[in-house]
């Protein structure tokens, strides 16, 4: 018999922390750090989106809009209004949250495919606005961002930082930051899931009627989780913007929204650790597929279909249940 702690999701968090802490001993060069940083930031968005899609059962095909919203707000606030990155990021997150609240109110009473369609529409509109308002956003060619600064210390990907007798490169520090953000994101998500709020959200998915008669104001809770997941995306977007130093409206595109929802579904809906694996796969897969050159799309499409057909509940949940069945 395992102890209760080992069976709780928080044990998973500890192990995730362990894995993240071990990564620096495995990587061989800065490119690996780059991928890891991307994985952590993408996984952060996915963990938030999973609250909405996996736990509360509300599909969003336009989530890239919030990610782009955070990134662009940070870009504009830092470059045109001379606000330092950290407050800019917070203002961006608040702004994106407010926008999500405003647009969420009318669209979240839609169900199923109509909700998909409406969120898709929002994403498309956001991408068009970013593309067209070039005075503000730099238009289709994109916009640059300054390096992140924390408490007056600039964190450039390219800098070197002496720290307690060690010299850490900017790339390494960025990875540590992204990993910390992911851990925090997972911790908050786990807390939410195992709370009255989390039960109400899961009930939206399990049985909206049960939730209603149990006293859950379903409209309000849908809106809440929509805003929470939008803020997750915004923060990750802002960080990605500062990390990469340059963003284009491509990050708000329909394709990017699809990529995000694919991460959630592929990794496993309603499985916080599953979607992290989903993010790992979707970030790494293009790197592996470069050898296929012209056949890259064919292989990617085939993998996507195969995984979803044979593991319809997503990688982690399906493998987990098979494993448990095998153990019995």
């Amino acid at each position, binding site marked *: 018999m395992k102890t209760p702690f080992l069976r709780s999701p928080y044990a998973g968090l500890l192990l995730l922390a362990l894995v993240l802490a071990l990564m620096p001993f495995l990587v061989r060069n800065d490119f690996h750090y780059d991928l890891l940083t991307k994985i952590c930031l993408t996984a952060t968005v996915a963990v938030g989106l999973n609250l909405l*899609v996996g736990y509360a059962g509300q*599909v969003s095909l336009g989530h890239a809009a919030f990610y782009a919203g955070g990134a662009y707000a940070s870009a504009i606030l830092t470059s045109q209004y001379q606000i330092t990155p950290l407050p800019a990021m917070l203002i961006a997150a608040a702004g994106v949250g407010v926008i999500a609240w405003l647009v969420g109110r*009318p*669209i979240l*009473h*839609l*169900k*199923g*495919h*109509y909700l*998909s*369609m*409406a969120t*898709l*529409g*929002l994403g*498309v*509109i956001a991408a*068009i*606005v970013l593309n*067209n308002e070039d005075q503000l956003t730099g238009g289709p060619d994109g916009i640059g961002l300054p390096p992140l600064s924390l408490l007056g210390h600039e964190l450039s990907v390219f800098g070197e930082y002496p720290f307690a007798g060690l010299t850490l490169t900017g790339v390494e520090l960025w990875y540590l930051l992204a990993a910390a953000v992911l851990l925090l994101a997972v911790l908050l998500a786990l807390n939410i899931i195992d709370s009255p709020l989390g039960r109400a959200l899961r009930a939206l998915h399990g049985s909206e*009627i049960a939730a209603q008669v149990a006293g859950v104001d379903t409209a309000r809770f849908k809106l809440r989780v929509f805003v929470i997941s939008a803020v997750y995306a915004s923060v990750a977007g802002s960080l990605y913007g500062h990390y990469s130093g340059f963003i284009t409206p491509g990050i708000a595109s*329909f394709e990017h929204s*699809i990529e995000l*929802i*694919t991460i959630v*579904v*592929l990794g496993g*809906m309603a499985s916080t650790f599953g979607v992290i694996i989903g993010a790992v796969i979707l970030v790494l897969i293009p790197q592996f597929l470069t050898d296929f050159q*012209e*056949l*890259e*799309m*064919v*292989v*990617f*499409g*085939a*993998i*996507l*279909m195969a995984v*979803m*057909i044979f593991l*319809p*509940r997503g990688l982690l949940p399906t493998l987990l249940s098979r494993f448990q069945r095998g153990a019995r």
Partner: protein
Amino acid sequence: MLSEFFQFTFSGVTLGAIYALVALGFTLIYNASHVINFAQGEFLMIGGMGTVVLLEAGAPLPLAMLGALLLAGVAGVVLYKLAIAPAKKANVVTLIIITIGASIFLRGLAQFFWGKQYHALPRFSATESISVGGATLLTQSLWVLGIAVVLVVALALFFNRSRLGKAILATSMNKDAARLAGIKTQTILTLAFGISALLGAVAGVIVAPITFTAYDVGIMLGLKGFVAAAIGGLGSSTGAIVGGLLLGLSEAYTAGYISSDYKDAVPFVIILAILFFLPNGLFGSRAVERV
């Protein structure tokens, strides 16, 4: 100014007819299987590109078209057999991802075998355009409209008159009951995917002379078709047609009268407004949820 209005209308109706055909394809599959098939746009691509490739291989135009339609039909059936049917237990979002995977797969194949070039198909009539009320009307637009109308009528007859059509309808209403009534639902679903693919391919062939065709035309047209189907109310054929026309016209009028910058955004705003008041689209069923 009237001629201007005519011009925008012609352009909107042509676009709308294309969207409507794609939306009908969505509707057909949605009705039979409750799957939103994001690979629908790829059938258009197969229709257009298939014709181009066969034409280049030396086939006469009608034969090339026929071949391309056949190819698309086969692709539809294979899609169902290999990707949708095995995923019976999958939930809605998973099915969406599967069809997206299929769409990427098909696009990848087309790119690999048929290349990335854009191609033009010859128009069907010798004359390019005629003047109506001071506005230019393309003869190919008339072909698009004519064929769209014929297809819609044919589909309506098929569903209301033929045994097969009725069987598809019955399956869409209640799969278990249909099975009990002796309908082979597997066959019916396969058929629905095949017909839907054919429909898409026809649209792909008839618009190619106006819009060009390439391995990636399916993305945008597929998306617009989905939008049109959703405005009309998923599962309603009338809705698909009205939704398609509404989308096409609103794009053309926005580009013409408001701002071409926001041509693609304004229709979405209209759609969001429609969905706000009619959460099941214009013609969607407003059945009360059974508890």
